[in-house]
């Protein structure tokens, strides 16, 4: 059984994510600081909140910094959590975690913002999180910003919202989904299981 931690920025719906992870067999702790020893086989950055307050909660309340705490532990960033992997975001002024090169920009103004609802995943290449997920599967999105990685190689799936929106990214031990797997029914469950498999390795 994988033991994982969800980092709580203090403003999110942690309950659903915790519940979904427990349903697929994980033991879940909720943490608010990196100052205690990392005894977990996986870390999740949840998907609800605002860029600056979330970054501040990660950076300002711990003496130990994110990268140092995480090391090679698999990290799943969901929505905002994935956006924080990058260098900066148009949503805020704070610097991101900077573990994947690139930035976060607002969605195309020709479309309704937020992009809210069920959209198809267009799988670009095999990825650990996407194992067993069929091309065209439905995922639940709710976001106003999208990531723009410096290298497209990190993008494993996209979604079409006027423009191609990176939906899943993977680099080293960092996995990100722009949609919410915990709200994406059966398909989301498969992806959470895939993440837990990485945590057990």
């Amino acid at each position, binding site marked *: 059984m994988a033991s994982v931690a969800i980092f709580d920025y203090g*403003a*999110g*719906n*942690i*309950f*659903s994510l915790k*519940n*979904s992870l427990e349903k697929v067999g994980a033991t879940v702790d909720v943490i608010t600081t990196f100052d205690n020893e990392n005894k977990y086989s996986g870390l999740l950055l949840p998907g*609800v*909140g*605002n860029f600056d*307050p979330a970054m501040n909660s990660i950076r300002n309340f711990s003496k130990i910094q994110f990268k140092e705490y995480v090391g090679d532990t698999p990290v799943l960033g969901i929505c*905002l959590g994935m956006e924080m992997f990058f260098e900066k975001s148009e949503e805020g002024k704070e610097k991101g975690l900077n573990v994947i090169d690139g930035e976060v920009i607002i969605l195309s*103004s020709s479309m*309704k*913002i*937020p*992009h*809210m*609802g*069920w*959209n*198809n995943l267009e799988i670009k290449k095999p990825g650990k999180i996407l194992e067993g997920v069929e091309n*065209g599967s*439905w995922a*639940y*999105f*709710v*976001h*106003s910003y999208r990531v723009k990685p410096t290298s497209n190689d990190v993008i494993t799936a996209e979604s*079409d*919202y*006027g423009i191609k929106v990176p939906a899943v990214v993977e680099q080293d031990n960092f996995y990100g989904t722009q949609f*919410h797997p*915990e*709200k*994406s*029914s*059966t398909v*989301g*469950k498969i992806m959470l299981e895939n993440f837990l498999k990485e945590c057990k390795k």
Partner: protein
Amino acid sequence: MTLTKRIIPCLDVKNGRVVKGLNFESIKDAGDPVELAEKYSNEGADELVFLDITASNEQRKTIKNLVRNVASVIDIPFTVGGGVKSLEDARNILLNGADKVGINTGAIKNPKVITELMELFGRQCVVVAIDAKRNYNVDEKKNIFTKDNKQFWFEVFIYGGKEGTGIDVIDWVKDAEKLGAGEILLTSIDKDGTKDGYDILLTRTVVDSVSIPVIASGGCGKPDDMIDIFKESNVDAALAASIFHYETHGVNGVKSYLKDNKIPVRL
């Protein structure tokens, strides 16, 4: 493929039970909210909305346990509204497992709560619910519409549709968007309970006034009403209650019918 239209069953909750008006009769018990949530979720509902229908009048808080129990059984998004007045009310709902909070009377009384919510939880959590009713006392400062030689404007009502505010719906949705709303849940009081179809004029006008998603509500009596509202407006989602209570129109059945009629839905 692109974003689909969302079909959203609405569950009106009173004293912890789902209630419905059946054939215009008085409110009847329609079951356990958690069981119904699970049933709709399994049938392919895209989201769920829970409204504590008595909350605004009786100043009651939405039940924390209900939110928790629902969040434990479903893996699709859900919104909880009814009686939300403060940041603390909203927090109570969101931290217990709801994805979005619906705020209606509370937003009219204290519009800055929309901004506070947006800043803390993100825009996507903030659903501004608006109950709209045609007002035939024409005032030139309002957005005037004419139908069947009658002039009217759409007025915002609060306290569960019982009290007019004198505020124009079109002005209010624009303000709500600026203040930080992530979505509008638009209910036509004129159409609600009629099973006569959504208010197309109202819905279309609101959709064209904002750039955030809009959910149409009030008046759905059959799947064709959903087809009409999706074809006649650029609305993002259709909410309905009564049609899903009859076995003949399960959520999946409704969505299959929509798909057959070229409405993009998740199946």
